[in-house]
Every structure is written in structure tokens, then in C-alpha cells.
């Protein structure tokens, strides 16, 4: 008897099982193949715009992805460094051998956590409540909670040209029956599709025809709790190339051979808009002469080079021609062909904000099964599912992050409120309050939660509190210290150069000037401030007006989110609800007025009707 069983050992499964085990619950992680734990079947990178911030958030909540990426990176960059602080994010190339190895080591060294190789094909369900899982060999394992993190393995089909093969990534066994069982239990099962490009033998590429893309020359870590584990000068570069006219011709001439363009007639899966195959790009953007491709190293321990941007479901012979039409790849040796993969997922509208399913109590789902795409999106859901399954077993309220608190909150709210049509990727544009959800303040936003749920230990928490207090202290100091228009001061200001003073000015207000940075203040005041704190204060000072605006907007949303809708509300009893609104409300069952407003098809008149009904039936105080 376990307390928690996690099905699937990908990025979601690792975080889920670690969270539950670290919170003291006896946990079993079941995976089809231990060798594939924390595998990166697609691109060899962690982070990116918005995603990099999610990794920081996972870290602040006590998850593992940030630390594990720090241990295995080949190259790291701060994206958008020329833009504002709200959109900066880290992106790293991670070693595909080291990353899983380090993660497995962590899992194996975690008390309360066992790992088992098996295929899960059914669930044990009693009275609408989960009781464990059934394995392919008929064996049953019982538990109080189950977290499904099956990735792309539900009825996975690999598509290459006109061939469809029932298997998961790396030719692994898929789960053939679990999604049917889920349908029987009452889940709406949907079919999604994604793809991955070729892997090329490094030694067969002529890199002289490519543009080198280096890592940053300053040190970065994802984790707030790690020192850099790499050397700047030892980072491995990526390489940039472009498709040629010949590439375009080959693709357009052979379009009907692609699985997606006629090669296969039975495709139901919906592919992601943000990562179309190269043939999709050629068709949709006909006028574009060339497309950018990145050659990314997968590992120091083997020779595969990942061709980012070249995902396709063309047959192998056409793929050969396509690859050889690229500059530097004229004689390239393809080690693995590109493929598309179709898989089953569930309708995330059947989930609560805690990621517990509404269909079966104590059953949680996280990652690609919920319709997302990306390692980071999966990991953060795994973490939240692990935390919330544990909290439920402890008889506590779930941890639900709001849209103004974390990208994780944006992602989960989007999934369970709006549902998805194509695989969901996080974008900064999905966050209304992205100025609040910054890379630099992820720890300030979330470490308290991580500590409360028990995933941040005392030592780290004290360190964090010290940082938070130090920020306050320095801020106060800057607000209390004035500079005055003396001759000496104004001479210094003119040397910067910046406008001389006429009246006194606090250092805090002085720092607001666009041309002034924190180090200029050192001329007037002697303080020893670490760089991260300088950065934090500078951002909140310089952009105070915008931050205030965002906070004000966010508060409106929070007020609406705080107006709770009882679980047992009967929408049939509310007269005059528009039929579309009623149907959506019944399906999604929003927990708050705020969530109800975000459902498309529910309009303000419907919201008013709900409020009146609540007041009448539940003596609800709207204000």
C-alpha cells in the first residue's frame, strides 16, 4: 500500500513523485523503462521565454528542474537581455545524458520514493474514488492517490511518411488500453500530435558554413540555491543555418508524401500552432524565402546534433534530400529520422485548479496528458499535482497559484478554464500581468509557499528571508537619503552625464532617471549590496509606475477570484442563463466568479444572474 502512485517518469512524473515523497508520503513511481526517466525526447534545451521563468518558479517552490538543469547544462543565455526585466528568461542547452542521470540519482536518493518498471493499463476505482493501479500483467497496486503523467505514451503512434507505427518515442512500448479505460470512467479523450526533427552525426557537418551561437559571458543559474556548475569558456556553441531554395522545392514537390499532407488519411491529432512542421511553414508562409534552423548539440557523450526548426513527417528518402539541401549538411549522415507522434490526452476542463480530476477523486493528472507541450510546462504541473495530492492526503486545502502570482497559475487556469485545441505552450503573452511575473522575483513571489508546503527547508528559507529583508533595508536607506544641489554633486552629475539638481532628491528618486544605475549611487552612500539585490531594487524603482498599474489591474481580478462559487451549485436552477453559458458552466464548474468570467461564452449578464442566484440560495454576500 502506497500513499501516492505516480504513473510515468518524465518531467512531470519526476517532480510529482519528488514532491510527494519529500513531503513524507510513501510514493511509488512507475515507469515503462527506468533508462528513460527524465528523458528529453525532443529538443536538448531547458527554459526559453516564459518557460525559463517557470523553471525559476519550480525552484522557488522546492521543485527539482532548476537544480537539475544547472547540473547538466552545456550552454546558457539570458534571453531578451536588451528588453525590459519582465520578459527576460534563461534558456540552456542541457546534456541529454547528464540531465536524466542526475535526475535519477536524485530520485534514488530520496527517502519514501520507490521506482518500478511496469506498464499501467487500468485504474482501481471504488465509489468514484481512486484506489490504485492495475498493471499490464494483471497485478494490482493500491494507493490513496494516483498521479497520471503519461506524456505521449497513451496509444502513441509514430508517423513517418505513409507509415504509422504503434510505439512511443525511442521505440518504447505505448500504453494501449489506459486511455480507453479513462474514457469508460467518463473522461473526454482527445487526440493530439507533435513532432521532432532529425538528429545528424556531428562529424558529417561542415560547420564552416554556419554561424556560431555562443552562450553568455556571465554566469547564470536557474536555481536560487545553486552556484554555477559550469565554466563560461567551456560552454558548447550552437550553430545557425537557413533553408535554401532547393529545400523549399524538395518539400513543395513532395508535399503529398508527408503524413500530414496526404501520406496518411487517418490523422485525427491536432498539432501545435507554435511548432509547425517545416512543410507547414513552407505552405503557410509561401512568400518567405528561407527559414532559420539551429544545430544544437545533444550531449558531450554522443554525436547527435538536433536540427531545431526542421520537424517533419516526410518519408525517409525525402528527408535525406531535404537535409542534404542545407548549407553545411550536404554530406550529413542522419542518425535518427524526424517523425510526428500522435497520442491521447484528456480534456483539461475536467480538472480542478488543483489538477485533481473532477471525474475520479484523488486522481491527478499532469503534463502532456493534460494537453500541454514542453518539458517545463510538464514539470510545473507535476510539481503542483504532487503538492496537491499530498496536501489532500494531509487534509489540507490545495495550493492554487493565481494568475498574478506565477506563470504556473496562468498555465493551470488556462488549461482548466479554457481547455485546449492544440498542444498548449506557455508564452509571455498569455500572462496579463507579466510585469509582476518576472525572472528576478520568482523567489520573492513563491518561496513562502514552498516553505509552507514543506518543500523548502529551514536553511534555504532563512537565506531567502535574509535576502528579502536586505532588499527592504536598502530600499529604506535610499528613500531616507537625499542628495542636495551642491557644486560637488552637480559636477558629478554632469560627468555621468545627467541633469544637475535644482532641489534635493532622494537617492531612490534619483535612481528612477533612465541614465542612472545603482552603481552611480555609490558616489553618495557607502553600502555593500550584492548584485541580485541591486537588480531587484533598480527594477522595482525604475518601473514603479507600470508595476503599480499592473498591481491595480491584478487586484481587480483577485477580488473576483475571491468570490467563490459553491461546489454544489445547480446551474439548471438559474433562470435565463444563456444556453451556451449554462453548458460551459456545467462542464467547467468554475470555483469563483473570476474564473467564470474567463470562460469564453459566459457574458456579464450571465455573471449577474449567477450572483443574484448565489445571494438568494446561499445568502451570499457579494460585498
Amino acid at each position, binding site marked *: 500500500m502506497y500513499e501516492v502512485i505516480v504513473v510515468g517518469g518524465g518531467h512531470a512524473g519526476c517532480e510529482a513523485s519528488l514532491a510527494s515523497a519529500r513531503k513524507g508520503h510513501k510514493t511509488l513511481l512507475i515507469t515503462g523503462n527506468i533508462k528513460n526517466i527524465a528523458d528529453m525526447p525532443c529538443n536538448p534545451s531547458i527554459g526559453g521565454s516564459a518557460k525559463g521563468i517557470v523553471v525559476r518558479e519550480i525552484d522557488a517552490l522546492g521543485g527539482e528542474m532548476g537544480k537539475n538543469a544547472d547540473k547538466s547544462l552545456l550552454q546558457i543565455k539570458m534571453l531578451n537581455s536588451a528588453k525590459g526585466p519582465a520578459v527576460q528568461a534563461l534558456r540552456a542547452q542541457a546534456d541529454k545524458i547528464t540531465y536524466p542521470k542526475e535526475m535519477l540519482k536524485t530520485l534514488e536518493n530520496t527517502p519514501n520514493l520507490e521506482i518500478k518498471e511496469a506498464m499501467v493499463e487500468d485504474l482501481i476505482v471504488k465509489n468514484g474514488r481512486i484506489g490504485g493501479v492495475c498493471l499490464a500483467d494483471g497485478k494490482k497496486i493500491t494507493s490513496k492517490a494516483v498521479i497520471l503523467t503519461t506524456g505521449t505514451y497513451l496509444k502513441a503512434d509514430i508517423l513517418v511518411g505513409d507509415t504509422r507505427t504503434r510505439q512511443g518515442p525511442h521505440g518504447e512500448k505505448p500504453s494501449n488500453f489506459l486511455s480507453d479505460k479513462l474514457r469508460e470512467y467518463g473522461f473526454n479523450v482527445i487526440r493530439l500530435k507533435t513532432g521532432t526533427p532529425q538528429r545528424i552525426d556531428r562529424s558529417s557537418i561542415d560547420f564552416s558554413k554556419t554561424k556560431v551561437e555562443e552562450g553568455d559571458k556571465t554566469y547564470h543559474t536557474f536555481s536560487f540555491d545553486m552556484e554555477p556548475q559550469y565554466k563560461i569558456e567551456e560552454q558548447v556553441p550552437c550553430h545557425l543555418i537557413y533553408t535554401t531554395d532547393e529545400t523549399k522545392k524538395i518539400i513543395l514537390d513532395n508535399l503529398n508524401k508527408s503524413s500530414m499532407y496526404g501520406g496518411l488519411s487517418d490523422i485525427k491529432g491536432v498539432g501545435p500552432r507554435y511548432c509547425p512542421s517545416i512543410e507547414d511553414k513552407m505552405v503557410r508562409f509561401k512568400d518567405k524565402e*528561407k527559414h532559420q534552423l539551429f544545430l544544437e548539440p545533444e550531449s558531450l557523450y554522443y554525436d547527435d546534433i538536433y536540427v531545431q526548426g526542421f520537424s517533419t513527417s516526410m518519408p525517409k528518402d525525402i528527408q535525406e534530400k531535404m537535409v542534404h539541401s542545407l548549407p553545411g549538411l550536404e554530406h550529413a549522415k542522419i542518425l535518427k529520422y524526424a517523425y510526428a507522434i500522435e497520442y491521447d490526452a484528456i480534456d483539461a476542463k475536467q480538472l480542478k485548479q488543483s489538477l485533481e480530476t473532477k471525474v475520479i477523486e484523488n486522481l491527478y493528472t499532469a503534463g502532456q496528458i493534460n494537453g500541454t507541450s514542453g518539458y517545463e510546462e510538464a514539470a510545473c504541473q507535476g510539481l503542483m499535482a504532487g503538492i496537491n495530492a499530498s496536501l489532500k492526503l494531509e487534509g489540507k486545502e490545495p495550493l492554487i497559484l493565481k494568475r498574478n502570482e506565477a506563470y504556473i497559475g496562468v498555465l493551470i487556469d488556462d488549461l482548466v478554464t479554457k481547455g485546449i485545441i492544440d498542444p498548449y505552450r506557455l508564452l509571455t503573452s498569455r500572462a496579463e500581468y507579466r510585469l509582476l511575473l518576472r525572472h528576478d522575483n520568482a523567489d520573492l513571489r513563491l518561496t513562502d509557499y514552498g516553505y509552507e508546503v514543506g518543500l523548502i527547508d529551514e536553511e534555504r528559507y532563512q537565506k531567502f528571508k535574509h535576502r528579502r529583508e536586505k532588499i527592504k533595508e536598502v530600499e529604506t536607506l535610499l528613500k531616507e537619503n537625499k542628495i542636495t544641489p551642491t557644486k560637488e554633486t552637480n559636477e558629478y552629475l554632469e560627468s555621468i552625464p545627467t541633469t544637475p539638481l535644482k532641489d534635493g532628491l532622494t537617492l531612490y528618486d534619483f535612481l528612477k532617471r533612465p541614465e542612472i544605475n545603482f552603481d552611480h549611487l555609490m558616489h553618495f552612500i557607502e553600502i555593500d549590496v550584492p548584485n541580485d539585490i541591486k537588480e531587484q531594487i533598480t527594477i522595482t524603482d525604475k518601473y514603479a509606475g507600470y508595476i503599480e498599474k499592473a498591481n491595480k489591474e491584478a487586484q481587480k481580478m483577485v477580488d473576483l477570484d475571491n468570490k467563490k462559487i459553491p461546489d454544489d451549485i445547480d446551474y439548471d436552477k438559474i433562470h435565463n442563463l444563456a444556453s451556451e453559458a449554462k453548458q460551459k458552466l456545467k462542464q467547467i464548474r468554475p470555483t469563483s466568479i473570476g474564473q467564470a468570467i474567463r470562460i469564453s461564452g459566459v457574458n456579464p449578464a450571465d455573471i449577474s444572474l449567477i450572483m443574484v442566484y448565489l*445571494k438568494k440560495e446561499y445568502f451570499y454576500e457579494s460585498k
Partner: protein
Amino acid sequence: MEDTIAAIATSLGVGAISIIRVSGNDAIKIVNNLFKGKDLTKVSSHTINYGHILDQDKIVDEVLVSVMRAPKTFTREDVVEINVHGGIATSNKVLELLLTNGCRLAEPGEFTKRAFLNGRIDLVEAEGVMDLINAKTDKARDLAINQVSGSVSNLIKELRQSLVEILANIEVNIDYPEYEDIEVMTIEMIKDKLKMIKQKIKEILDKSQNGKIVKEGIKTVIIGRPNVGKSSILNRLLEEDKAIVTDVAGTTRDIVEGRITIDGIILNIIDTAGIRKTDDLVESIGVKKSLALIDEADLILFVLNNNESLTDEDEEILKKIKKHNSIVIINKIDLANKINIDAIDNDNIVMLSALNNEGINDLKTTIKKMFNLEQIEQEDYTYLSSARSIALLKQASKALDNVEEGVNNNMPIDMVEIDLKDAWNLLGEIIGANYSEELIDQLFSQFCLGK
């Protein structure tokens, strides 16, 4: 539900008193910001307070303001009622000020709705009227959207499209920074597009003002030195249409003196107190006062005497009115020409003789042409849509000003984008667009991205 709403509570009409009702958390604060008189935030509940409503520093109207604090009010929220002097122009101006200062225009039935949402009306009773209210709001929303004329609505769609293209470009630069082949939206590019968009908003505002004119009349001021014949011209115009509506007797208000309709178009003659009684008062108005009037008016009629040469004062006024809708009237063409007409730099010069009733029709034709009145479809510009959309358009324009300020302060592009998005959303509100997924759809259709 906590936003503050405002609407004209009495039926629109000329004369008498109109009541503008404001309800919500910020009702007292917002009205107080526009009010000159006692500090309304400090007065006792259920009191009536005398004072003036101001637009910036200019007095809009002399008013009585009732302050009623929650919960003993109709809506159980803070309620303020402003009693203004009747007339669409004044009531609407006050409403517009409220809408640009934080109020939202109430939907029909919304005060009642709030009353029962807040428990003021019995809930059984409320259920009974629910059908009605619900139908009303849905219809009202459609109406509000449809009432923006097709052409204006298309213009706004075009502006939103320009904005969303900029937004999607900025978003894509942020979300896909590694794509070197995507054009990077720079501050300079935003500046150019911004200028274009602001210009267009101004055009739409002008057009909407024209629409308002049909409904509410043209604020007209007649200026000129004593004895140039202002009164005679006015009287000639009046002869054509005896339907002059004078103000309620006994008020000291000097906003609308008289109302003349020319082929269905209303001229509200403003700020000419006493003009028909004696010229003495006009003398006391002087250049300074005339200059102040010019800014308030939709139309300036500047009267000169054909029989006298231009004075320095005249030239000063000529210079000033050039930027406004103005007509230079050269009266007394029955007398010898002493004025140098070539020295008058204005697109609209009308020569007439009030004495002989010559050229009055030319004046009317010029006015009609100037406001493009033949082309305005009256039904396209209702009171509701104009007040609402004008307020939103002005807010959008303000948001674009903020963008400009951010640009000038070297703010990073993703900060500047916050105000840009704000403007886009405000424009969307005018035409009732639902924006939730629009931007992301745009992002994927506009740019080629992928792994």
C-alpha cells in the same frame, strides 16, 4: 460589480433640470474631483450641495449635488445625483466628464439591477423582473455596438488591426527571441505608427463630434467689436426661424443663450449674455473674453464692419480663430468698403448686409458646408453611442499619450507595450470585441515559428 456607473436619469430634453445619477464605490470621489464647492467627501450623507462642475478650470454648469452614502440609497451603494440645468449639451458634457474620469456608462436597468443585487429590492420581486432586465441588457449591448456607425466601426477595426500587428510583433520578439529573421519592432517604428494612429483617432473624434452636433447642436459664439452688427445678424437669423428657446428665467447661467435651427441643425448661441438687449455689455466683454470663448465653441462667427479698417484687436482675433471652425462675416456691405479684405486670412468669408437682408443664405450654406452636415446620417450617431464611444476613444488616445511618454523616457519596449495593449483594449470595447484569444491567434498567423 464594484465599478462606478453613471447615466442621465431624467429624460433628455430642453429646459427644466436634468439629473445625472452616479452610483458605486468611487461615486463621491469622482464627482468631487469635478466639483467646485464644498468637499463632497466630507459632507454629511443625504445633503444637497451648491457649486459648479468644472472641466479643467472652466465652469461647465452651476449645479446642485445630492450626496447619499451607502447603504441607505437606491442601490445601497454611494450615490451622487447632479442636478444640472436642462439641455442636452450640458447634461451630456457633464456625463462625458464623468465617463472620462472613471465612471462607466450604466446599461439600461443597471441601477435597478444593482439595487437588487445589493439586496435593496426583495429577491422574489427581483426574480420577477429578471427576465426583463436580462433582455434589456443583452439588447442594450447590441444596440450600443450597432449604434456606432458602420464607417466609424470600420475605422476602429482598422486602428485595432494596426495596433494588434505592432503588439503581435512585439510579443513574437519576446517569445521567440532567437528568431533573427523576424523583424524587430523598435521604438522608432512604434513612433511612426503611433503618430498615424493618433491622427486617425483624432479624425474619428472630430467626426463623432460632428455626429454629436446633429443631435446636440453647434456651440456657436458671435464675436466682434461693438456696433459691427452682431445683434442684427442674430436677429436676421432668428427671423428665419422663430423657434428660439430662451433659458429658464432667473438663472444666472450663461452657457446657452438661445437656440436657432437652420434646416434642422441647431445653433446653440453661447455666452452672449445680453447680446439682444444692449451692446454695452458686449463692449465690456473685450478681446480677452472673446479669446476665452473661442476655445469653447464649435463655431465662431467673427463679425467685421465693411465700413471700418481692421484694428490690432481684430487681427489678433483673426489669427486666433484661424485654427478653429470660424467664419468671418463682413457686415454692412451696403456701406462703402474701407476694410482690406485681402488682409483677412480665413477660408470662410461671408459678405452680407444685415440691414438689407442680403447674404444671410450664404452664411447658412457656409455653416452647413463647414460641418459637412449633408453627409451626416443622423441615425448613425445616437446620444448613447457618441457619449460612450467618445469617452472610450479619448481614453484610448490618453493611453497612446502614455505610450509616447514611455517611448520618450526610454522605457523598454515591453513596458511601453502595456499602454499599447490598453489602447487596443479600449478600442475593442467601443466595438464590443472580445480580445482574449485574438492576440495569440494573430501571433501565430502573422509569424512563422516552430521547432
